[in-house]
């Protein structure tokens, strides 16, 4: 997994609440057995007008947002389906950080598994940043994971909370399965204890 330390990048805006994973990557792109190459499916329906032509208003079609690595959006980003194809598609398009006032649980977890930082800022802070982006073509932010800050070009710094363990793993790009396997002895010990309490859950270990 990619490590995430600091990122200075162009900011794109998707000014909608409840952006669900069905929109981020529609179902027809879930038939793949790979993790890569999903950018063509990113917001597949939203990037088009009803007649099928590209919607010039949609952020992915706006030249000013080309090359963006940070996405700014509204509440409950990533709600709905558990599909990890959603962060895979965002990553494939180049996004390494999503900023929103709240995220749906499963999407939030999935980001960390893929080296993407989902940063929670207050609704009014997101609002202020959106206004700044709208007013300023080429607007960039600096996201600093160690200090847990989002810094604006004018020097304003917004702090976000993050669970220390997740931060550590993201910062160092650690393989979480490898970390868990370091506790192999504890898992085995747990299984022995639990088998005693709830033997009906361990029929496979007796056969």
């Amino acid at each position: 997994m990619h490590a995430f330390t600091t990122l200075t990048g162009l900011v794109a805006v998707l000014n909608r609440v409840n952006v669900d994973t069905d929109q981020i990557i529609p179902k027809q792109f879930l038939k793949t057995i790979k993790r890569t190459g999903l950018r063509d499916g990113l917001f597949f329906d939203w990037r088009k007008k009803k007649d099928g032509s590209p919607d010039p208003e949609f952020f992915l079609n706006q030249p000013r947002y080309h090359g963006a690595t940070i996405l700014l959006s509204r509440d409950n980003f990533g709600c709905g389906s558990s599909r990890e194809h959603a962060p895979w598609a965002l990553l494939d398009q180049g996004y390494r950080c999503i900023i929103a006032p709240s995220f749906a649980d499963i999407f939030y977890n999935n980001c960390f598994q893929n080296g993407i930082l989902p940063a929670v800022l207050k609704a009014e802070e997101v609002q202020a940043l959106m206004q700044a982006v709208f007013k300023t073509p080429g607007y960039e932010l600096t996201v600093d994971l160690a200090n847990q800050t989002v810094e604006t070009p004018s020097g304003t710094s917004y702090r976000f909370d993050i669970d220390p363990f997740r931060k550590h793993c993201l910062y160092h790009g650690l393989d979480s399965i490898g970390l868990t396997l370091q506790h192999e002895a504890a898992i085995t010990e747990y299984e022995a204890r639990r088998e005693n309490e709830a033997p009906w859950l361990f029929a496979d270990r007796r056969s």
Partner: protein
Amino acid sequence: MAGKTLFDKIWESHVVREEPDGTTLLYIDRQLVHEVTSPQAFEGLKLAGRLPRRPATILAVPDHNVPTTDRKFGIADPISAKQIQTLEENCREFGITLFGMNDVRQGIVHVIGPEQGFTLPGTTIVCGDSHTSTHGAFGALAFGIGTSEVEHVLATQCLIQRRPKTMEIRVDGRLSPHCSAKDVVLAIIGKIGTAGGIGYVIEYTGSAIRALSMEGRMTLCNMSIEAGARAGLVAPDDKTIAHIKGRPLAPAGPMFDEAVRAWQQLKTETTANYDATITLRAEEIAPQVSWGTSPGMVTGVDQRVPDPRAMSDDKSRQAAERALEYMGLTPNTPITDIRIDKVFIGSCTNSRIEDLRLAAGMAKGKHVAKGVHALVVPGSGLVKQQAEQEGLDRVFKEAGFEWREAGCSMCLAMNADVLQPGERCASTSNRNFEGRQGAGGRTHLVSPAMAVAAAVEGHFVDIRKWN
């Protein structure tokens, strides 16, 4: 000292280790696997040279991509076929039980878990599918995970978690006739919003919840994720135990009795505290119909399509305006004036035998309205078989409904069952997102009873006044 909640008891019995900062290695008893979210997990396992730790705790089934029409000729779409074939190969390679496409036990992953007795109280259950919350109906801590975590559980039988908060949603009183668990959960989401449950595990309590059947409790817990919650729980009781007894994968004989004694302890103690409590009165819940593109955009069938101009909050107003434009609805239209083109009865929310019995009971002697296309998709091959033994298929067919093979079908339209742009559907599924049932398709979430009435009349009707 405060007592323990049901959630506390399940969580604490699954802690392998806890770090000083609260990061917890949580043991996972059971994993359900389907074709869409597992190929990359198995690939990861292979690339790292790892093996599943306890293959016998995994049950796999293809459901999202399977056709609901005659399967003799396989799957027409080669990409869907490849995904299902990949699941079969992975299960064979790693010794995982798979109910293949032509196995009568095949069905929607969240229908077959309970059906087989794979879902048990007090367990932790995961699946690469957000509707894993369904299994909480049995007092199991069950939640959806992404593909990386699917791989994590395969390799380690554990997940790295932080303890969520607890929310009690208490529904007391008696539901009015024709109102069901679906109406209860839609009303709850309407009340707390689609982000209201973020960070929480919900425990549903109260006399109206106790009165629900196991099928009803599954419907309720299924849509906990639509309220943003990690999981939903109902404490096991005599109904739960009766439902599990004798199922193929459930414990049997003295082991069953021993398990029952443990399951009877799985209730929230009277001195326990929840982090939040929400209460509803069952009598006040009307049959629900969603009007927008998020499950929280829902109202009673006796109401009107809301007027965004009356909304004080900017974000809500903009979201409602956009939703109404997508849905092709005019503010203040009575819900009962909304005409529909399609009806879908199925999905992990409402495709169990009780749902089909109720729907068939209402469809009997009636006929689907002219111009309406209605589909019934049982949740599993065994549900289908049971329904056919009871003659429900004939009732549906005589009433003009199509009777299909088991699968996820038009809930997310990954197979050939798709809405066309602009088509409007009364659906017993769980998500009304834009394009969910097909690009440009318009979904209204309802209960099975409401779906049947809409199919017959061609528009929504208040089933409390319908005969």
